[in-house]
């Protein structure tokens, strides 16, 4: 029984929960989103700053359970500094892991601390928790890119 719990609450997760990385809302950013898990009320407000096709910063403020907090923290570690395209593919990889019902073998090269969440995939009710921050990031990044393409379009119009 404790083994079952331990597979969910791996040390890495509890560490990130107690000491979240990159927390707090920062400037500059192109997009800010607010995502909610309607079932349980967990919330995240998240900002993305993209510069030259690279995820320059992700900052956030969030309330929620250990899984949602830790996964948001791990996500920032994984995407900050990466080209947007690469970051999106990490997102894909994490999504695949989470939706795999525990049958997907995570690639530590790509997901780093994220592999600690492979146990979460066996708890369907918690998958949404683990994805809250990631979904917010994807949404915000999409909006950042849109706003940039609009402003750069605006540029060519001049």
């Amino acid at each position, binding site marked *: 029984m404790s083994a079952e719990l331990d597979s969910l609450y791996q040390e890495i997760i509890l560490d990130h929960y107690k000491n979240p990385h990159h927390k707090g809302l920062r400037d500059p950013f192109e997009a800010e989103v607010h995502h*909610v898990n*309607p*079932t*349980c009320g967990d919330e995240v407000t998240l900002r993305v700053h993209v510069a030259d096709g690279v995820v320059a910063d992700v900052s956030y403020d969030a309330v929620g359970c250990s899984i949602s907090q830790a996964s948001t923290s791990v996500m920032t570690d994984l995407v900050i500094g990466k080209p947007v395209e690469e970051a999106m593919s990490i997102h894909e990889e994490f999504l695949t892991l989470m939706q795999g019902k525990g049958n997907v073998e995570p690639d530590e090269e790509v997901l780093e601390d994220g592999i600690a969440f492979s146990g979460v995939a066996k*708890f*369907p*009710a918690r998958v949404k928790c683990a994805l809250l921050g990631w979904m917010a990031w994807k949404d915000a990044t999409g909006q950042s890119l849109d706003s940039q393409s609009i402003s750069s379009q605006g540029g060519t119009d001049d």
Partner: protein
Amino acid sequence: MEGLLPDLEVVRKDFPILSRTTPDGRPLVYLDSANTSQKPQVVIDAMVDHLERHNANVARAMHLLGAEATEAFEGGRDKVASFIGASERDEVIFTKNASEALNLVANTLALPGPRQVGPGDVVVTTEMEHHSNIVPWQMLTQRTGADLRWFTFDDQGLLDLSQVDELITERTKVVTFTWVSNMLGTINPVAELTRRAHEVGAIVVVDASQAAPQLPIDLAAMAPEERPDVVVFTGHKVVGPTGIGVLWGRRELLEELPPFLGGGEMIETVTMERSTYAGLPHKFEAGTPPIVESVGLGAAVDYLAALDMEAVHRHEQAITAYALDGLSGVPGLKVLGPLDARLRGGAISFELDGVHPHDVAQVLDVRGVAVRAGHHCARPAHAKFGVQSSTRMSSYLYTTPAEIDALVEALHYTRSYFKVD
């Protein structure tokens, strides 16, 4: 007889109620399936298993039973989506019945939003609709000042398509019609009407309450311009339980419509001042959904899919042809609707000269033959024939030719009992 379901006797064993008898020991001949279908054991068992072993509320619950119940409930949605070939499971909304589904669309079209219906707009329906596809549109048009117009039908029970240009115009915002009539049996030309409606930018709402039980429906296989925007049907007519209906809608349309009922499950966040709403499908599912009903409906559509809806359709057509033939031998009997089985579904309404439908149904009932007498929730279609009511037999996948024989024989008896001639 050709076209019958293979192993019909085995299939019938799946339906416990079919072995019931009348008080004086006659076998039950259930010919009222357009009203509601009987349930196979697998559907009942799935519901019992759920209630005895997995019952919990869904979505909100994080515990073992909650996870099981949620999986079972959402599994029902997946099965329904695949049964009708929906491209996305989240386009499948559970309502309480087909009537609520139609009201949901009609009500939300009255509210502010990109699709809002207003004065001068036209809503088109038909004269052969079930009341559930008339009254909601009367309410919508009365409340918004829009005009309700309708296709009439001819003596054969076929829609008068010569009215298309007059009815479907730039003013038309909604075109709604039944896929298969529950009274006349008529099968309407969904693709053609939908294409015409889409040409003027109207949305198309199809009442598939009688089609879903009888015809294969494959939304994915339809050309987009011929695919309705909304298709509704009801659980209890597809061998599933009461208490659940299905509203399939094209995602973009469902997103444009404002929410209908407010409450638990359909919200994103709530403060006392204002609320924001959840995404599909939950936006339209306020309160605790029909959980055990979804489990039952999932088992039901799986059962139908395993039989193969093409085979079910062939069976219905074979039985209907046989019934039309048998009925034509009863003196003074007049069928209201198409006489060609290929143009129709399995509901056959008729008049019997000199005997009121109630009295027909009563005599039939005493002989164990269950049919419906009345207006079948289609008074306007009856008015068209100048009558208040009719008698209706409706077969389904478990109906045998021998049951049709029993009906025909009982009709002859009815005539002699009432000394007609």
